[in-house]
């Protein structure tokens, strides 16, 4: 028996040979996940959620007048310096050549940030005066949500765009900063947004790649501090946020591993062809 239709064969039309489905393969690409490994990876999402949470809490403190902008600016500056030193140490730990030029460039970038933000802060202050506060809140919420959605969590998907996510976070921070009472507040707020949305993830990635245990500890500490900060604002929100964090870090990996069992993916010669080889050398 042959699996062809153009030959006349001594079998009835509905005859199915035993070799008919012998090339069927199941779940070739399915991966076996380790529970704790998945929990470790979910640390990125936790971190980003906590960043947004910390940002909103700090903004709330500033808006209420509970936190002086000088304090926040000082704290941000010191933590940035510490972060920069750690970043340097980690980078030199892997043996990359350290040059003065990159430090100069970093300094230049920092000066550009500060100068531009300080120069534009009066403009930012009056920017959304005539727009209603609810509109601003809604816009910021949408933008922060967009930041969380488009953030590069390490997944290889079309929706991921770190540029867009960073821009949305900056947009949201500018919107929120324009609600603050004076231009120094706005300046400090936007600077803080840059630190927490742009610089902090860079350090995180470096830490995660080099020292996983340390990263674990830092993530836990960061989540705890975000919860503590939220607790001073609203207890119900804290509970809900804690539940969210727990569900993301514990429940979701468990669900993923359980659902992996039900995976039933079939492959065979009917699949569309896949080009395995790298054709770029022919294209050159």
């Amino acid at each position, binding site marked *: 028996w042959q699996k062809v239709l153009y030959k006349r064969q001594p079998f009835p039309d509905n005859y199915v040979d035993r070799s008919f489905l012998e090339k069927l393969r199941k779940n070739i690409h399915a991966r076996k996940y380790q529970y704790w490994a998945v929990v470790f990876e979910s640390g990125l999402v936790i971190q980003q959620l906590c960043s947004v949470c910390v940002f909103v809490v700090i903004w709330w403190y500033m808006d209420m007048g509970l936190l002086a902008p000088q304090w926040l600016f000082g704290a941000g500056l010191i933590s940035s310096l510490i972060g920069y030193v750690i970043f340097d140490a980690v980078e030199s730990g892997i043996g990359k050549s350290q040059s003065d030029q990159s430090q100069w460039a970093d300094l230049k970038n920092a000066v550009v940030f500060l100068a*531009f*933000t300080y120069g534009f802060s009066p403009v930012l202050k009056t920017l*959304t*005066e*005539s727009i209603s506060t609810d509109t601003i809140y809604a816009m910021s919420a949408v933008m922060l949500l967009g930041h969380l959605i488009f953030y590069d969590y390490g997944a290889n998907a079309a929706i991921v*765009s770190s540029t*867009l996510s960073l*821009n949305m976070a*900056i947009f949201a921070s500018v919107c929120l900063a324009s609600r603050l009472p004076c231009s120094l507040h706005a300046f400090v707020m936007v600077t803080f947004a840059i630190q927490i949305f742009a610089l902090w993830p860079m350090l995180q990635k470096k830490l995660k790649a080099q020292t996983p245990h340390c990263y674990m500890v830092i993530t836990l500490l960061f989540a705890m501090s975000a919860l503590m900060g939220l607790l001073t604002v609203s207890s119900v929100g804290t509970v809900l946020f804690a539940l969210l964090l727990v569900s993301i870090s514990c429940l979701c990996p468990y669900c993923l591993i359980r659902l992996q069992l039900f995976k039933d993916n079939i492959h065979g010669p009917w699949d569309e062809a896949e080009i395995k080889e790298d054709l770029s050398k022919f294209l050159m």
Partner: protein
Amino acid sequence: MVLKIFFPFCCSSAESGLLVGRWISEQNSAVILAVIHFPFIPGQVKQYLFKLQHMTQVNMTVLGSWTNSKQPKEESLERFLEDLGAIFSHDPWVQLSKEKDSKFWSCVATQKLSDSNEEDEIVLIYYDQRKVMLSQLHPPQWSIASNDQKTVDSSRLTVVFDTVAKSKLLFMRDQYDEGPIKLTHWQSEGVEASIIVELLKQASVPTCMLITFLLSLVSGICKSRALTIWPLSFIWSKLSTCQQLGHRLQHLQIISSSRKAPNQTQLMRKANIFLSILIDVALGILLMSWLYQKNRIGHLANDLVPMADHVAQQLQSLLQWLMGAPAGLKMNRALDQVLGRFFLYHIHLWISYIHLMSPFVEMILWYVGLSACLGLTVALSILSDIIALLTFHIYCFYVYGARLYCLKIYGLSSLWRLFRGKKWNVLRQRVDSCSYDLDQLYIGTLLFTILLFLLPTTALYYLVFTLVSLLFLGVWGGGKVGYNSGRGEFCIPPPFYFVLKKD
């Protein structure tokens, strides 16, 4: 036998005298060419006719007499006319007479030699000498020479035509010549006009040369380097008066060029331009005569300044409204104030300028009014320029608003691409993805946010000033149409000449 007499129209009102013409005996017909008036000396007439015969090869003779009597008939005159028949012996002797207050002519042909007393029938045929001359039908010599029997048959009329055409020399003499003989024929009417035409023909060549010289001088000055450097040439291209004058100069150059028009279309074009310029200038002079009566210019000047004031006040109140919260729109207050003050200051400047000018407005208008003698179109284009200058501030507002809005839209569109992490690839003319640095992203997003929140304010200013300037364009539409058509339609003169010729 029928006697045919061809009689020209123009001689029907001639004074009494002798009929001069050719006798075509084979057709038994007389072609009368002219009338010789009394008084004359028969000998001189004979001599004159002999000379003409010699020159024109036409057998010209005295055919009879012509009486155009104002008074009732006189016996003596009739006798005299019959006597004339004896002097100029011609057979038959034709006597034509026309009486006052009578439609009928009397025509008598006396034949001396014939014995028969029977009366011939006489057919009097009117013909228009001028048309026969101009018809160009006459000299088909070759058709006669072809010796065809049919041609000879049909060329009976041709002989008549030929006779008239050949006796051109007879018509060359007109009544103002100091000669012993006075004639009436088609050329003797409208002699004055033909003299004027001749004079004009003579005068036109030097006039054209003079005009060409002047025009080349003027255009040489216009093309000189000092007037075509950058800012000036830009101003010239914007002022409709200059364009109109340029077209006028070109037209005059076309008309006054001494070269002959190569074909009928070019000739038509020249005539059209000439006529349209004439009509234009006539209308302009009419306008001028209307304007300078009853101190109309003074009234106009007195009305102009309050009108400009009124417009400025309206604009100021509009700006005040915009600087508040217009229609409850969410405008950026700081930018709103800045823009509003900028435009208010502009209006203030404009108003002080107008007030500074106001003592001179009447004088300026008076001198500008003089330009109407160059033609209505020139006056209209100057009017349009004046209006454009008077409403210049509104146009300026529109330009500022539009430029600001345009800049903002450009900035927003490119920053929106940056916001999404894309960029415009100039080489491939498409949007590509691009990885930006952190500082680029930060500053770009900051600017994007600022521009986005300021957009409604600029958009409103742009909208309002566009509407205002459109309104002014609509109000002064006539002037503006003139201004625009000064480039296009008006430079093609309307086909007056063509229409006239058709009529």
